């Protein structure tokens, strides 16, 4: 009765646990800003599997970990340059975790539009005065779902980010799938269709296609990390124990067990949104954490719309385990 909000306790507990782990990751970054910060070490510090850590971090913080680390390093360096005129540029670079001053200068220019020396020689002052005059610019980045609260010292969910997302937990049997690999990215023209064509030509005559077939897509790489044209995608169709691998067509068994399943529909950009919604909005309040296995896209019907503007309906399956 006296509680300000009636959040289910499991949800509150998960949110707190996610916040605690995120803090551990951010602390780790803070402590090691001058050293080597890899995604793997960061994930380990946060007790998340490296497989999903990138998405969770991006969703909660609003930018990918590597970008966040680079931004922090550059900002720290910019501060040092402005405030410690006696420290050499190379020294600043090394103190902020850049391996060479050449790399540092290039990244610095990209970010601040001038060389570290120009920054130190009056560029910073000019920029500061200009920024105070003009209104703060619009940030094109989507707003992160969480923000740091100084009052409670935790990450709190932003108001207005609680769009209803119907997610169910499903027990998936060890689906045996036939797959054709596609290693050239997820774009519309990238040729995922060719992988499916090869798969269907194989699966059809063997009796694995019909009105009840289950067609899956496995996106193994995160396009925010892996170069767009190198992302791996497996086109899959569920088969039975009679299926045998043959040439380009491989056979594997999907990790059985609990999956969090959400249904999404929309154009080509829906996939990115779907992953963000599941990892950033749903998971932190769910009482679950992602398990170390790939997520699955289970297609509902075939794409509609035009080839330039296809529309998809699919269930996104995220492997989960209790927190």
């Amino acid at each position, binding site marked *: 009765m006296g509680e300000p909000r009636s959040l289910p306790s499991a949800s509150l507990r998960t949110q707190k646990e996610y916040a605690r782990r995120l803090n551990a990751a951010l602390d780790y970054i803070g402590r090691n800003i001058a050293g080597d910060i890899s995604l793997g070490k960061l994930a380990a510090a946060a007790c998340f599997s490296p497989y999903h850590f990138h998405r969770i971090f991006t969703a909660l913080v609003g930018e990918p970990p590597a970008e966040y680390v680079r931004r922090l390093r550059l900002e720290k360096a910019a501060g040092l340059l402005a405030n410690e005129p006696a420290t050499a540029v190379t020294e600043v670079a090394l103190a902020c975790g850049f391996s060479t001053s050449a790399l540092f200068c290039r990244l610095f220019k990209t970010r601040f539009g001038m060389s570290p020396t120009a920054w130190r020689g009056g560029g910073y002052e000019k920029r500061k005065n200009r920024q105070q005059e003009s209104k703060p610019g619009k940030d094109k980045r989507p707003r992160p779902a969480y923000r740091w609260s100084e009052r409670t010292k935790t990450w709190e969910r932003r108001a207005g980010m609680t769009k209803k997302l119907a997610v169910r937990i499903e027990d998936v049997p060890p689906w045996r799938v036939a797959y054709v690999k596609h290693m050239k990215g997820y774009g519309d023209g990238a040729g995922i*269709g*060719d992988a*499916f*064509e*090869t798969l*269907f*030509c*194989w*699966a*059809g*005559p*063997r*009796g*694995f*296609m*019909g*009105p*009840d*077939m*289950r067609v899956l897509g496995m996106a193994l790489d995160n396009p925010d990390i892996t170069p767009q044209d190198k992302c791996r995608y497996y086109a899959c169709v569920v088969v039975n124990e009679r299926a045998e691998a*043959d*040439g380009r067509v491989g056979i594997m068994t999907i990790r059985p067990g609990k999956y969090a399943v959400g249904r999404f529909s929309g154009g080509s950009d829906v996939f990115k949104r779907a992953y963000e919604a599941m990892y950033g909005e749903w998971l932190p309040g769910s009482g679950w954490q992602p398990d170390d296995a790939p997520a699955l896209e289970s297609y509902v019907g*075939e794409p*509609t*719309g*035009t*080839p*330039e503007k296809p529309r998809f309906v699919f269930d996104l399956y995220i492997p989960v385990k209790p927190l």
Partner: protein
Amino acid sequence: MRTIDLKKSLKPFYTVSAKKPAIIDVPAMNALMVDGTGDPNGPVFQEAVGSLYGVAYTLKFTFKMKKGVDYPVMALEGLWCADDPAVFASGKRDEWKWTLLIVLPDVVTKKDVAAAVAAVKKKAKFPRFPEVRFEKLAEGKAAQIMHIGPYAAEGPTIERLHRFVEEQGYALRGWHHEIYLGDPRRSAPEKLRTILRHPIS
């Protein structure tokens, strides 16, 4: 790029009442077909369904990628008959004869189908590839009703359809026709929707 919305243009023939049978005039349509005999739960039937889908999707991809035409793969349909119709009631499934089909848009020609069949055969490397062919299906006047429920429970609905045809002063002709709108895995058996159709004269 052109989009052919077959599902929309053919909607009048696929929108069927489960409450009472109706008489319609079905236009001639091109289709992919494959013939066979035997139990619909057996491997021969499964291979036939799969091959039909394999060719249907290959055609769809070919048209989308190479010809700039996009169309949906339509629902699976089946034509059923037997030398002695009593085998349907008695469940002697070995004697059931069937032709499975998937309707195609008019842009797809016999030549396109032959090319797709050859491509699937080559890629599939499958010894017993069922003969998938292109044929025009012209049913004309027909009576139809929606059956909602498992396939095995179609009996009473079929009887209702036949009684209706008789009451309206028509006679059955040709093969019994079923259009499988439901997805046997994703919907519960009692919710499966199947159009039951029979040409009449």
